[in-house]
């Protein structure tokens, strides 16, 4: 599978001379200056760097939440910078999953309803929504917790619900922004194991922002950002990823 992807299919993500400028005039601030990055389907990439280095900016652009100010970003060969708001929303809906540092679950909403949310926007019938949400929760080890609200779950459990929500749609790309930032070491390890398993078993490409080298060590490739450009891009033989 990996050989076919490498030879025929274009890279999942291809950025060329990507620039991002916030503000205008004298207060303008360039967060990214000319980033070139290419990620193949099935990779597990960790993005590292100090705060203000542009790693959140690149995540927002790669996640189709934001558009670059210059350069090009092709997702599956589609130039994202030319898409409008709704077209980018459609891309997110069908191909992307998000996991955030703060979990970002809907409060007072059961785990299953949280996981069902993206399926709801895809217009799936109720029975199928319930089945797939329950299956996704079981896959992250939360079978039997369907009717608990976030307030009744621990941090690690909440993050696993968030991961279930991100992967219930079987996305091509999972974007995780500091997924272990709010968790202790043991919980962090569980989350990383889960992400690795999703990457290996379901072939989901994982792009994870982290500032913890321990977490980055799980990835098959580590990209370091400093001052809005890539300082290093190294593959780790021992880490995750299907390459």
């Amino acid at each position, binding site marked *: 599978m990996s050989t076919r992807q490498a030879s025929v299919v274009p890279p999942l993500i291809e950025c060329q001379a990507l620039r991002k400028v916030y503000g205008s005039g004298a207060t303008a601030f360039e967060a990214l200056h000319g980033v070139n990055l290419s990620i193949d389907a099935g990779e597990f990439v960790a993005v590292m760097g100090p705060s203000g280095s542009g790693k959140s900016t690149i995540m*927002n652009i790669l*996640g189709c*939440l*934001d558009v670059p100010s210059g350069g090009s970003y092709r997702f599956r060969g589609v130039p994202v910078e030319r898409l409008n*708001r*709704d077209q980018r*929303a*459609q*891309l*997110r*809906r*069908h191909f*992307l999953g*998000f996991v*955030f540092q703060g979990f*970002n*679950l*809907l*409060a*007072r*909403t059961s785990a299953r*309803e949280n996981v069902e*949310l*993206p399926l*709801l*926007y*895809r*217009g799936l019938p109720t029975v199928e929504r319930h089945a797939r949400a329950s299956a996704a929760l079981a896959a992250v080890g939360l079978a039997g917790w369907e009717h608990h609200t976030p307030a009744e779950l621990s941090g690690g459990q909440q993050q696993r619900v968030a991961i279930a*929500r991100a992967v219930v749609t079987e996305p091509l790309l999972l974007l995780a922004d500091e997924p272990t930032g709010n968790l202790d070491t043991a919980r962090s390890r569980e989350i990383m194991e889960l992400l690795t398993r999703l990457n290996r078993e379901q072939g989901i490409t994982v792009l994870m922002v982290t500032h913890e080298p321990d977490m980055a060590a799980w990835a098959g490739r580590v990209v370091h950002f400093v001052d809005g450009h890539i300082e290093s891009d190294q593959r780790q033989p021992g880490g995750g990823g299907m390459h």
Partner: protein
Amino acid sequence: MLWNALLLSVREIRRNLLRSFLTILGIVIGVAAVITMVTLGNGATAQISQQIASLGSNLLIVLPGQRLGPGRDSSGAPRFRLSDVAAVREQVADVVAVSAQSSTSITAVVGNKNWSSMVTGTDNAWFTTGNWVMASGREFNEAELRGGRPVCVIGETVRRELFGAAADPLGASVRLKSLSCMVIGLLASKGQSMMGSDQDDLIVMPFATFQRRISGRQGNQDVGSMRVSFRDGADASKLQAEIRRLLRERRHLATSEDDNFSVLDTRQIADTLTGTTKVLTALLGAVAAVSLLVGGIGIMNIMLVSVTERTREIGIRLAIGALEREVLLQFLVEAVALSAFGGLLGITLAALASFGLASLMGLPFAFDVGINLTAFLFSAAVGVLFGYVPARRAARLDPIEALRHE
């Protein structure tokens, strides 16, 4: 998409039951107030029309003096005579019946019971012009009318007070002053008049009997008033004019003199009275509608707060792939669902309130589908109107900003 939006908003409303209820309280009260006002107003109007109908339709009442209008003097106006009644009956076209009547108050005695009532002397035309139906017994016969025999027909109230509710009064005697009068008929009940008086509290006897034995002036031809009923479809104002012309001539009034009698059309009185009630209903309804508007502003206020409070949630939805119009629709549907639910609650409340108030005030409960539907649609429209601004604000949020929102 709409179904999803509905599902999401119902979930959201259920999640914030108390807040949702307080949000729609304004709408509930507004809708309930509008419907109650209009329903009660309609009940009052219906009651007046009904009472006018019981008075007799196609009816003109002719009274001596100018009773209506300010500053007119009715005292000293000459009375009508029986010949006037005959003239109207014979000379005016389209007249079906003319009854002459005179009334006075009297104490009726049966055994050890006595009752203060009104006694009216008249003829058989009175049953027609007054729209009266006999519950039992008969009208007067020719001999009784001509000979002034001591017979009478009584109303339901008089029967109840003098004989008891279940008793058959036919053939019994009622003493009026020195006259012992045999009951030959009982009138079917009509209930209260529009002025609130009891229409069934009366005793009727032949005109001649009344003249000779009650008013106590032998050979007196004076008539208290006339009732003229006319054919269906006849022009009431033309008849009025004709009777007026005839009576002016008979009463020898010069062109410069004002009328010293009045010809009243019951339908005109009815129109005036129901018109007044309708204006009052509209006025009260309009005042109540203001509270509906205030309720709508309440919904907008809460929805705006809700958008701010749920910024992060909106960010999550947008990140997951919700389209701008889906978020817009969700918030709009939520506002509409809230206000429509408020409308339904209001309708229920109004039904209870107007039913209770109507029976308390003795009005008929006139359920009006139109106003209920209008109030419901209006409350839903209030939801669209006042839900749109918050919904658009929610839909236009930047997902990155929204996700960062604490």
